[in-house]
């Protein structure tokens, strides 16, 4: 910010500026206070109570919601599903996105059209996406069965099978997100100075060496950013799961946000749901703080 040098008599103006500033930021801070910051405090409070959201009285039960959580096998399954979803999508999605970004960053024809098609799922209504994918996974008439039969296999009963439902969700999450990651990688690739490649070429480096010695290390800030964004995004997954599987079969696709939703708005276990929400908050907060720490140390800027 520019430093002003002001005559002393400006204090009246300073006062006016203070009022203007407050008036300008007031609506935003009021809303953030009520709908973003207060909820953290209130969730913590509610997590010590048993409450069905309707009854006028809440019953204080101390740490019981947390004790119940530790003893709830569904909670551990939900946590495991959430982590599996986050970990498996991030690697596949980033690898594919990087490959596509490298290809698209060459001088090729129809670059903008490819980019638009690959990016289009990013903005597509997730409920509609989940609807069509539910139909693609149909074991009898689904599109995917065509390709599975073509290679001589039998289609699993995707969304109805405890061991195939989560992979199906993972496929949809990758399909939806690969275009966004690709566009961010393309921006990262454009920031790498071309002289580096020219110099490497003079030294006789192959494209393969160039990729692993120049592109990949210099892209590390982008890769790191996308890893964090993808992991946090997967931790918040809800829409696709709610539409395609309702968390089933037998909780095999139940993830933390869906479990919060079930507890709070289907079973009215408000206190337990608040405790779950706090767990999600702590996980995301930890990742964000670790990110700010590590970004300084690891990343090759």
């Amino acid at each position, binding site marked *: 910010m520019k430093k002003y040098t002001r005559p002393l008599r400006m204090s009246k103006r*300073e006062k006016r500026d203070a009022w*203007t*500033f*407050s008036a*300008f930021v007031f609506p*935003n*801070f009021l*809303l*953030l206070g009520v*709908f*973003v*910051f*207060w*909820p*953290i405090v*209130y*969730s913590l409070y*509610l997590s010590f109570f048993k409450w069905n959201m309707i009854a006028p009285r809440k019953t204080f039960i101390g740490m019981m919601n947390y004790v119940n959580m530790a003893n709830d096998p569904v909670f551990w399954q939900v946590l495991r599903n959430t982590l599996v979803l986050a970990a498996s999508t991030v690697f596949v999605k980033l690898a594919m996105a990087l490959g*596509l970004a490298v*290809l698209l960053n060459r*001088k*090729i*024809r129809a670059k*903008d059209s490819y*980019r*638009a*098609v*690959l*990016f*289009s799922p990013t*903005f597509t*209504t997730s*409920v*509609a*996406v989940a*609807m*069509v994918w539910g*139909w693609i996974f149909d074991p*009898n*008439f689904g*599109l995917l069965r*065509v390709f599975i039969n073509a290679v001589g296999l039998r289609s699993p009963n995707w969304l109805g099978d405890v061991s195939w439902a989560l992979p199906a969700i993972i496929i949809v999450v990758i399909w939806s997100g*690969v275009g966004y990651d690709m566009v*961010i990688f*393309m*921006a990262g690739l454009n920031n790498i100075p071309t002289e580096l490649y*020219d110099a490497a070429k003079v030294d006789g480096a192959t494209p393969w060496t160039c990729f692993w010695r120049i592109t990949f290390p210099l892209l590390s800030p982008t890769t790191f950013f996308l890893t964090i964004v993808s992991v946090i995004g997967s*931790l*918040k997954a*809800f*829409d696709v799961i709610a*539409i395609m599987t309702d968390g089933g079969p037998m909780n095999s696709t139940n993830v933390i946000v869906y479990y*919060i939703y079930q507890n709070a*708005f289907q079973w009215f276990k408000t206190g337990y*749901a608040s405790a779950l*929400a*706090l767990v999600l*908050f702590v996980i995301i*907060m930890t990742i*964000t703080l670790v990110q700010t720490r590590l970004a300084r140390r690891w990343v090759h800027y």
Partner: protein
Amino acid sequence: MAIRHRDLSGSRLIGRVLTHGALIIASLVIGLPFIWMLTTAIKSPAEVHLFPPVWWPEKIRWDNFVTAWESAPFGRFYINSIITSSTGVFLEVSIASLSAYAFARIKFRYREMLFMVLLAAMMIPGQVALIPNYVVLKHLGWINTYQGIVIPHVSSVFGAFLLRQYFLTIPDSLYDAAEIDGLGHVRILFHIALPLARPVVGTLTLYLFISKWNSYLWPLIITNTQNMRTLPVGLAMLRQAEYAIGPEHLMAASIFVLVPVLLIFFLAQKQLIEGIASGAVKG
């Protein structure tokens, strides 16, 4: 990237063919679900239940769209989605502009501190706030209302940051000249800063509109009657057995929901993608 003038020697030609081949396959994988949605939506019930599937129906069944439209109050869903998305965008962009301008141009003792508070808000996921927000809205009597759908999601952190960055790039001399002319902050914001920031405001508006149009979880929680549902919530309800409609109607209904978003995307795809690439909007 430097343009290299070279003959298309054999290996380069192969490289080019492979590049296009890989990109075409990837585009097909991404595009096929959309095509499948469209062709399913125009098939007859008999054709839908054929394996191997037919790619194109014998006779295009446009009436599937009519059946889908009439299976639920889609007209009403459309109105609800348009009202909530557009008022939400208007409020959020206004709130973002005011905050951004204040943080960029107005001197205030606690400005840096308040900026840190804004930063902190970005780290809190909205999914954590579902229950408290529901309770607050219940006290306000806003359950199942438009303001209940809209107001909890119009505070702005990201938009405020984005516009602030832009306002900071406008040369001081412009602001100073306006001040000498006796313009106050309100006028400077509306007559100088915002008009200059039009491309950024435009991208932000489109991006926010699409994300509000697509949002599902909050409208699902806060609405409890058919006539207040937004399109994604109404569409999701069609899966329930009571509607007893076929996949061709579900696909047709999905297309209703997607049309406005795809229209915006195809008209403004360059602006939106480049906005994302330059960090202007988050995905």
